[in-house]
């Protein structure tokens, strides 16, 4: 199964949520998990460097790859039925080779926050994804939700996003995300989001398979 995280707005939590999902899936299933980082100089790359120095035994394999090498890497990884391929899409979508990546996707997560600039970028990204691959299963994933805060026009925005694609349950803000320093996540952080991830898993991941 090929799952991607993408948004043209940097800083929406693509890398963090991808890492969280990868760590969760590693504990949940025995399938092989591959992380493909297509973001040049992105967070995952930096975290991987640190993990390499600390010689972490990671439950997944990490690859960095640009658009020109994606087809080769994908063909090499091959077996997609018994493996999860998690891709972090590049923020820049101005390259038509991105269409090759989209054609491989089974599920696309689009993390976003409720501020206006991020919403604009998110809606543009979703529109582009829908134009590139009609009928793509895209899921909006609200990130950094502060449970005690009120969000202006949240209802309207949620209704609007649901016109485009399904809207997942939100990922709450937690200080643990800011303490991530390598690809190895602290078990308490995964446990904390276990319920949310279970829901996402049962709603979107098992339905596809």
């Amino acid at each position: 199964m090929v799952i991607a995280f993408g948004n043209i707005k940097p800083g929406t939590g693509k890398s963090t949520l991808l890492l969280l999902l990868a760590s969760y899936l590693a504990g949940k299933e025995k399938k092989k998990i591959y992380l493909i980082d297509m973001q040049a100089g992105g967070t995952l790359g930096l975290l991987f460097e640190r993990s390499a120095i600390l010689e972490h035994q990671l439950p997944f394999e990490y690859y960095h790859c640009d658009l020109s090498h994606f087809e080769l890497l994908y063909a090499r990884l091959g077996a997609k039925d018994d493996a999860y391929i998690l891709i972090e899409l590049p923020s820049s979508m101005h390259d038509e080779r991105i269409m090759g990546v989209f054609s491989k996707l089974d599920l696309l997560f689009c993390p976003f926050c409720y501020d206006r600039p991020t919403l604009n970028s998110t809606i543009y990204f979703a529109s582009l994804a829908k134009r590139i691959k009609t009928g793509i299963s895209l899921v909006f994933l609200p990130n950094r939700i502060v449970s005690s805060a009120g969000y202006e026009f949240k209802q309207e925005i949620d209704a609007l996003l649901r016109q485009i694609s399904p809207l997942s349950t939100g990922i709450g803000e937690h200080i643990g995300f800011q303490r991530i320093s390598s690809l190895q996540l602290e078990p308490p952080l995964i446990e904390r989001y276990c319920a949310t991830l279970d829901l996402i898993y049962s709603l979107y991941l098992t339905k596809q398979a």
Partner: protein
Amino acid sequence: MTNWTPFIYGLGAVYLLYYLANLAFDFLKPGTPETGESSLMISLADLEEPIDASAYSPAPSANVNQPRELLSSGEISSSGGVLFGGLMEQAANDAIFFTKQIPT
């Protein structure tokens, strides 16, 4: 002074001799490949094996229910006649349509 007529005759004779010598050289040259054995003749008709026409379904209407499979040209890797720039423009228009609905 030569006239034109003997000159033309002379020239014709020289050409005739030249071509005769050329032909004689070709025929008398030792080791000329014998036609028939060494040259390979390929007949395209011999390569094509006869096919069993009954193997083909005489009724293509059996698959009419799934025309998509029949017409499939493989995995989609292009935008279907729309340039990528055009695709982005369409996406931008879609985005404007949706973002307009966000209350301010």
